[in-house]
């Protein structure tokens, strides 16, 4: 585990606020990201994640608040730290009419890299991302996963010490998402400070050291993953799938087992939680007494999802469906 309380964080944000007419997209955000940290910014659509990245990278102007990146004041002078940052936007935005190789060389040139260096770096990244076979194909002809990988490659072409990743695995196939997560982990191990926004909780839990939960432009909780998981670590949970509807079943079970909490997880699933051991036998019998049949009973590992739901009260299923799935 890295140092959490860095006295001189690489990114420091204080009371950052951004309004678009009547809507407050970012509402008084304050946080810090330490050197070499992989920091997660987790929240549903419309939480202000992309706006925050736009503000930090100079694509948007804050209404108030302070942004310091590597000691440079960036709220008023966004160009001050742009040479230190790489940005991977939520949508692949490279040039459709250029080949993958030419796109990378062009992005390298934007950061002042000389021709020989940018050509070498472009070839190196195409190989790392497994795109060498498509180097000469136009970007417009790439698949979604390939586009995403090349967009990440473009974001790191100039070897930035700070990388902003906006929903990097949204809307792509499982294999590509897994590969991208591995690449993010590798970049982190190599010392890159990463600011990652996502609405995939498992992804954030797997990759990040610290996470901020963001809802409606505000941070509702910020801590290390270990600390966030602490309250649910002692809890035991089980998911029971029954034939037929669980309507009324939860109330019956709650009356019979007051030491457990029961919650309808879906139309045919009951979630059982307790701080004690949950024995499945008596529960199965009680369900059968009510005319139901247990199809499956599965122990659940305490996860960040539980913490997120507990803190924000947000419906996770709805959040996962927001951007069309993929990624997990």
């Amino acid at each position: 585990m890295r140092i959490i309380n860095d006295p001189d964080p690489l990114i420091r944000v204080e009371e950052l606020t951004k309004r678009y007419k009547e809507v407050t997209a970012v509402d008084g955000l304050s946080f810090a990201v330490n050197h070499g940290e992989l920091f997660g910014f987790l929240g549903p659509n419309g939480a202000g994640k992309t706006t925050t990245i736009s503000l930090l990278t100079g694509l948007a102007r804050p209404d108030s608040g302070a942004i310091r990146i590597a000691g440079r004041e960036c709220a008023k002078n966004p160009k001050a730290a742009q040479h230190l940052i790489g940005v991977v936007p939520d949508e692949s935005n490279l040039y459709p009419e250029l080949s993958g190789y030419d796109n990378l060389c062009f992005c390298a040139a934007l950061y002042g890299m000389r021709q020989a260096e940018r050509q070498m770096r472009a070839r190196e990244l195409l190989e790392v991302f497994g795109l060498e076979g498509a180097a000469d194909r136009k970007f417009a002809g790439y698949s979604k996963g390939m586009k995403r990988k090349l967009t990440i490659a473009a974001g790191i072409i100039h070897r930035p010490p700070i990388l902003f990743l906006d929903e990097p695995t949204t809307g792509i196939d499982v294999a590509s998402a897994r590969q991208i997560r591995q690449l993010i982990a590798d970049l982190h191990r190599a010392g890159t400070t990463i600011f990652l926004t996502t609405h995939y909780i498992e992804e954030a839990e797997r990759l990040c050291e610290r996470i901020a939960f963001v809802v409606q432009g505000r941070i509702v909780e910020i801590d290390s993953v270990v600390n966030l998981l602490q309250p649910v670590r002692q809890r035991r949970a089980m998911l029971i799938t029954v034939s037929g509807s669980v309507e009324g079943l939860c109330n019956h079970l709650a009356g019979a087992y007051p030491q457990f909490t029961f919650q309808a997880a879906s139309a045919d699933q009951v979630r059982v939680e307790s701080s004690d051991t949950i024995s499945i036998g008596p529960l199965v019998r009680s369900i059968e007494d009510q005319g139901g049949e247990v199809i499956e009973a599965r122990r659940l590992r305490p996860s960040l999802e539980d913490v997120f739901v507990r803190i924000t009260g947000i419906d996770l299923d709805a959040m996962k469906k927001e951007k069309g799935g993929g990624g997990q």
Partner: protein
Amino acid sequence: MNQWIAFWSIMFKDVRAYYLKPPNVSWGLIFPVAWTGMFFIRSGRGLDSVLDLLPGVVAISVLFGTTSMLAVTVTFEKKNRSFDRLLLAPIPLSLLMLAKTSGAILFGVFNAFVPILLAQFLTDLSRIAWMTVLPAVLLVAIASTFLGLFIAVSVSEVFEAQTFSNFFRFPMIFLCGLFFPISALPAFLRPLAFALPLTYGVDILRQGILGQSMLPTGLNLMILIGFCLALFIVSLRNVHRKWIV
């Protein structure tokens, strides 16, 4: 960091990706030829009219070539968010916009020489004062390109860029002294003619090609440079105000 590497790369990328595409090259060739032919036939004076028509045709070729391409490409890049890549690059906004417009300026200068090359085969160009014509062509290309930039920054859709371009371009054909003198315009339209940059560019071209102009060349150059600066500064402010919100 060498910011000029970024500058040249943006310019060469645009030239390669947009301006050297066959449809655009053919637009640069066909359009001036079509306009020359139209006014050539209308004049009814045979080959004698070629030199008289040349300043207007050169100016219109530059105007249409630069404004249509720049307004559309910038709006397209803004729309698909690839323009954000440029805004994220660690180079000053002014240098970025100069790089973005330099390809269009070159395309405009190329367009200007298409009618001049054609005229070479039809009339005697030995009396042309090239030292007057060349800066005029360059300044008309710069002013037209910056007008295209102003249009691009003012709209959000590609089709709006086309429509808004025509809002400026077509009145200019008739108001700026391209094919008939400003003195022939109704009195109430003349002030409008002097509010348009192309009027001064055409006047310098007329001086260089025909040896006659309304205003002294030095004054025309200064006014045209003023238009270029004003359009560029207003466009930069608009980029700052509208695109980095």
